[in-house]
């Protein structure tokens, strides 16, 4: 038995058991390791991916729930760092250890997909679920504003 879904636009049929957390299917079966394991209990956001455009914690999402859905991961933003968020992350030199940044980027991408001019409070609310022990929050915040400006077509 397999479960079919699309990841970053490509179809896959996963053989893992239906209750396997999506995180481990993405990492160990599909082989995309950008999505990270941080807490296993949807508390830290390191494993954030999009399912049909919505940010979800893949560590706590069973594989069965994504049958026939579209999953996107950090690798789906772009491979050549051309996504406005990736460019802004580089411009502001956001990552330190970098481990949580895939999740930060995916939460930010979900925010900007629906709101290209978020307020400080809206950014706070969208990003409060993504822990960074290196404390890159100030730069994450600034980079989201830069990316939003680019996506609006404004000067950063």
């Amino acid at each position, binding site marked *: 038995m397999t479960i*079919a879904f699309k*990841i970053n636009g*490509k*179809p*896959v*049929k996963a053989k*893992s*058991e239906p209750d*396997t957390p999506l995180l*481990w299917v993405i*990492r*160990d*079966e*599909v*082989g*995309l*390791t*950008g*999505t*990270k*394991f*941080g*807490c*296993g*209990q949807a*508390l*830290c956001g390191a494993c954030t991916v999009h399912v049909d455009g919505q940010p979800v914690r893949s560590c706590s999402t069973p594989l069965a729930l994504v049958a026939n859905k579209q999953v996107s991961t*950090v*690798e789906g*933003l772009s*491979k050549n*760092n051309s996504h406005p968020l*990736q460019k802004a*992350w*580089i411009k502001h*030199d*956001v*990552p*330190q*250890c*970098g*481990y*949580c*940044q895939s999740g930060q980027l995916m939460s930010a991408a979900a925010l900007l997909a629906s709101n290209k001019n978020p307020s400080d409070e809206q950014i*706070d609310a969208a*990003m*409060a*679920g*993504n*822990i*960074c*022990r*290196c*404390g*890159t*929050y*100030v*730069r*994450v*915040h600034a980079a989201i504003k830069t990316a939003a400006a680019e996506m609006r077509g404004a000067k950063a």
Partner: protein
Amino acid sequence: MTNKTIQDHAATAQTSRRGFLKGSAAVSGGLMVGVVLPVSGPVQAAGLLHTPSAWVHIADDNTITLISARAEMGQGVYTSMPMLIAEELNIDIQKVKVAFAPPGKVYGNALLFGLQLTGGSTSVREGYDKLRLAGAQVREMLVAAAANKWNVDPSTLKAVNGNVVGPKGQKATYGQLADDASRIPVPEKPAMKDPSQFRIVGKRMTRLDTPSKVNGTARFGLDVKLPGMLYASIEMSPVQGGVVKSHDATAAKAAKGVVNVVQLPEGVAVVADTYWHAVQARKLLSIQWDEGANANLSTAAMFDGTRAALASGVPIPHKKEGDADAAVASAGKVVRAEYRTQMASHAPMEPMNYTAMVDGDRVQLVGPTQWPDAVQGAVAKLLGVKIENVSVENTFLGGAFGRRIDFDYVLQAALIAKATPGRPVKLVWSRPDDMTHDFYRPLSVHQLAAAIGADGKPTAMTWRVASQSITGRAFGLPPEAPDGLMTEAATPLYAIPAIRQDVVKHDAGVRVGYWRAVSHNMNAFANESFIDECAAVAGKDPVAYRLSLLDAQPRMASVLRQVAAKSGWGTPALAGRFRGVALMEGYDTYMAQVAEVSMKDGAPVVHKVTVVADLGAMVNPDTVEAQIESSVIFGLSTALYSEITIAKGRVQQTNFDGFRVMRHNEAPQIDIVLVKSSEKPGGIGEPATALIGPAVANAVFAATGKRVRKMPLNAEALAQA
């Protein structure tokens, strides 16, 4: 077809990081022979690699790989170490590849006893001269190779942007010269640039690892994948120090995908074809524990024992000038205070993990560690193999903060792999495994007293701390020996005519580890809270009072004046906002902070933190700022929220719900001023962590009149104050 798709994905994810590159065998530079260079960059050199120095590898195709002998755990060495080498090598820093050093004596850290250890904010301080020298040596070797080739005087040649050029238009790339250069003796005293000529060092530089950290390609320990790899999950004793008495793995062994069950002294590991299968089968284990001496341990008992040790323990002298005890005993006005700091977990975002393969008498180790040569030696000893048969490849570290100095998880992986020979095994801890089996920041209790003179200044101070020696545990430092890692920043820079300081070592029961800024955290909390208390008793402004005691410390005084100016000290804050100040010299860095807080629901909210740092010469000012931002947030988590507590020997916090850390919406504005300086470089990975606690505590006093003498500074602590 879908299998093919999955394989394509897997191939894409793995091709970029295949295997090892062999250095160009015997090297006559005399520094390194037959080095095996792990390549972690996205592109490998196509040509043969030449190794004129342990720090520089140049391929025929002019791909230049520079070595970082320090582990990248977020602090920026993947960029700052190559910057130092590239400065004198005269190459484009943006075009170099970077690799982490394998274990090797040449990569030892002179500031940490020659160990190949990343810690103590030492990387730039130790590498600043050494790595520029290494770059200059290779540059001169390349020039000498060109001079031989063209039969000209080397002084007529220039090394520019990866080429050696001659007066008659001769030109050769470093790649074309590297083979010859590798045979030239290493010059001892190559010409070095004056700092005014630097074009890389001291300039803001985009980190070299950033591109790989925004598209998922950076390789952390968790991402290691070797052919035929299995996955392990380990159930460890719920009480630290406990061991397995017996276990029944019948059900676990029958579970899907399980390949092996391995009993270690401290736990039982399940090895399976996937991580999730290992985790599921682990739940089926039945284990009887011998919980050992800590079975009834509690935080309250640990604090009580530590406090009692202040009176009953053996004090180890740290500093003595004059007769401070007599002065305090006879003084008319005395300030006394006791301070407590809590236990804390490192809790890096990447839980402990490591990959090991044992194949006959050879061992392959891949994963994140702050101390690769110790890992190599310890695994060799544990498995009874020759040290040269143990290879160690370091990955990016998903945070460490001192946790990955210890390598308990590496030894576990090695033992599990030994019991599963011929197959690589990746051991992955869960977050609860990680949080309940840390080496914790030790708790501490300080007792301070000061005699206050007629002018309000302290005339004498007595100071004693009781805490646990990490260095005793980690390095076997004898109990009676002074432990420099318990007395960091212990002696205030203030002019105090008589002082007596000593340390009581007390083993409170749990295993303790080096936690970002180590004892600076406890000592700065006590000292900078206490001087604030003295200022209040003297009726003086906290900044003015400190300045009046810093006449002999011009760098510190200057930093304090600057932080006062930048933070608006002495001018009205926004309604409901209050400021607190703290300062310290640590890691050769002079720093002061002002925290601006308001009170909400009986606890402080931190709105703004102003930091001024004089850390001497800098390599990458942007990274310096990032490390200050990082340290402030890291310190705030523990200053405001988090604490590890023990009940019945068990750590009570198992994840980020119980161990609360600062989140995005709670992060303050952070204003930073870096003092321009040509003094020797200071460390910056840690000091700001230690100052934010007392700065906030002093702001809370300004806001409420309450002196909170313990961390975390939460509503409960305030209610008790």
